[in-house]
């Protein structure tokens, strides 16, 4: 049986090892933030973070998450207590239909964790695998910039300790 650390908690997976991680997240654990978009790893709506790296959960069999840290959007905060990235997306009103947003946020989360000082160009390049059909790309970029600025003093302070 596959076992992974999902948003900080160790969870056993009942589904067969070749089941896409996305289905396990949504159907077995009720974590519905990651979306099914294309099922081909070409739109980004299903993106989650595994051990710090953004991955397409629709093309990742759950067996590859064995004993690894899987983070979904639910792991970044709650509606009552949103994390800084979620806060920034709300403040920037970056979601229109919202379908692509969880994937965008997870890739942005991976980027800002790895590179808190990411430039606008780096953010833009990093998000290239993500499609948004509403056309809110500029707001999304603004939200990520805002989140980066909000998170940086804290991470710099932490690094200094």
């Amino acid at each position, binding site marked *: 049986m596959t076992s992974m650390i999902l948003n900080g908690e160790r969870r056993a997976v009942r589904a*067969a*090892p*070749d*089941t*896409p991680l996305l*289905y396990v997240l949504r159907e077995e654990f009720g974590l519905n933030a990651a979306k099914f978009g294309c*099922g*081909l*790893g*070409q739109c980004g709506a299903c993106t989650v973070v*595994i*051990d710090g*790296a*953004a*991955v*397409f959960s*629709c*093309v*990742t*069999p759950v*067996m*590859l*998450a064995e004993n690894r840290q899987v983070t979904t959007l639910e792991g970044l905060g709650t509606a009552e207590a949103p994390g800084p990235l979620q806060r920034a997306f709300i403040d920037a009103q970056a979601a229109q239909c919202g379908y692509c947003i969880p994937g965008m946020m997870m890739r942005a989360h991976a980027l800002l964790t790895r590179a808190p000082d990411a430039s606008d160009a780096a953010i833009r*390049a990093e998000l*290239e*695998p993500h499609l948004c059909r509403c056309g809110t790309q500029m707001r999304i970029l603004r939200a990520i910039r805002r989140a980066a600025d909000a998170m940086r003093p804290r991470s710099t302070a932490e690094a200094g300790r």
Partner: protein
Amino acid sequence: MRTRRVIAGIGIFGLAAAGAALALAWRPAIAPVPPPAPASFDPALVRRGADLALIGDCRTCHTTSGGAAFAGGLPLPTPFGTLYSTNITPDPETGIGRWSEAAFARALREGVDREGRHLYPAFPYDHYSATSDDDVRALYAFFMTRPAVAATPPPNELPFPLNIRLTLAGWKLLFLHPRDLAPDPTKDAVWHRGRYLVEGLGHCGACHSPRNLLGAEVVSRAYEGGEAEGWRAYALGAASRAPVPWDEAALTQYLREGFHPLHGVARGPMAPVVENLAAVPREEVVAMARYLASLGAGSGTATPPLDPSSGPGQAPQSAGMQAAIEGAGTDLYAATCAACHEGERPPPFGGVSLALSTAISGESPRNLVNVILEGLPARGGTGQPIMPGFGAVLTDAQVASLAAGLRRRFGGGAPWPDLEPAIREARAARHLAARPAAAITPAMTPAMTR
């Protein structure tokens, strides 16, 4: 007394030899000229030069991603160090604006710049040496009518003594020889045109032929496969290990469209090549394909020759319901790859059957590892198949197991002995594997020159 005389003799001989070598190595500057007016060039000649520049892949090395066309500055990693491409726009101060046609011709064919400095053979003048006077004139007309951009590339990063350009004179003495392009009475005009382009401006051998320790192509082993920027450039012709042998029609389609259903997609450093060839007159690509096809085709490695049951559309497919395949590494294949590569979707949404992949049947695991790790990233604005990379979720051991399993199942060859180092190198060179899309296409379409 006698010893002293011998030593003196040796000394004099040595000095004379050094002097002679220096005289051979020394190339004079060619006097600068006032930058010629763009309007002084015949537009038809400029148009012709644009096509030739595409065949020569000039923009591919002389432009950075997102940078001004032909302004140089692209880092070129070589086994000897990193070189930066030069500015070949007609800027009088930092480009080639003051170069006469004679200076341009000498640079192209002999690898010596206007000032008389030897150029490094990352610039493939060992191929460009075959370029005819007429074509040099057309290329000159094309470059002198480009927008001038003031830009100076970073200095090359080469260790001593390679940073001494005079050493290149010795390299040229050993390796820069005119290509034998004598007419072959058994071949037609199209073949001759193709040979001229492939051996000359197209410089296919620069990547597809092995190189010796001094970085020169091994002429006796031409097209037996080589290395290019962290990718394997497959063997062409008789040494090809393509599962389905190439022919002229397949080569033409692949070179023009970057994709062939029996061979897959051009990626890595081949991607910009096919983007360039997509924009040149079709008959030029047909000619190149005819010559390349005449080099032989290998015998194919698909055993049995392409199992039809493994092609797209044969296996029932939905995510999570994949082919059951026996053997270590193949559980990964079944769970991770088969949904697309054995699915019912046609390309570009489904992958080609891996039984067709030279990356798996080929002589080196490097391309397969690159693609597993990085996928086939989208190239801005081009209609090409794309594939997600799996480098973030697969451990090195899993990549090795998957690659070895694919080789066993589809490759028709002995296990690769160099799989682990290939994975380590590919991980270290991620930035190379996912070379970004060239953002220069719009500025460079031949229509610009009309």
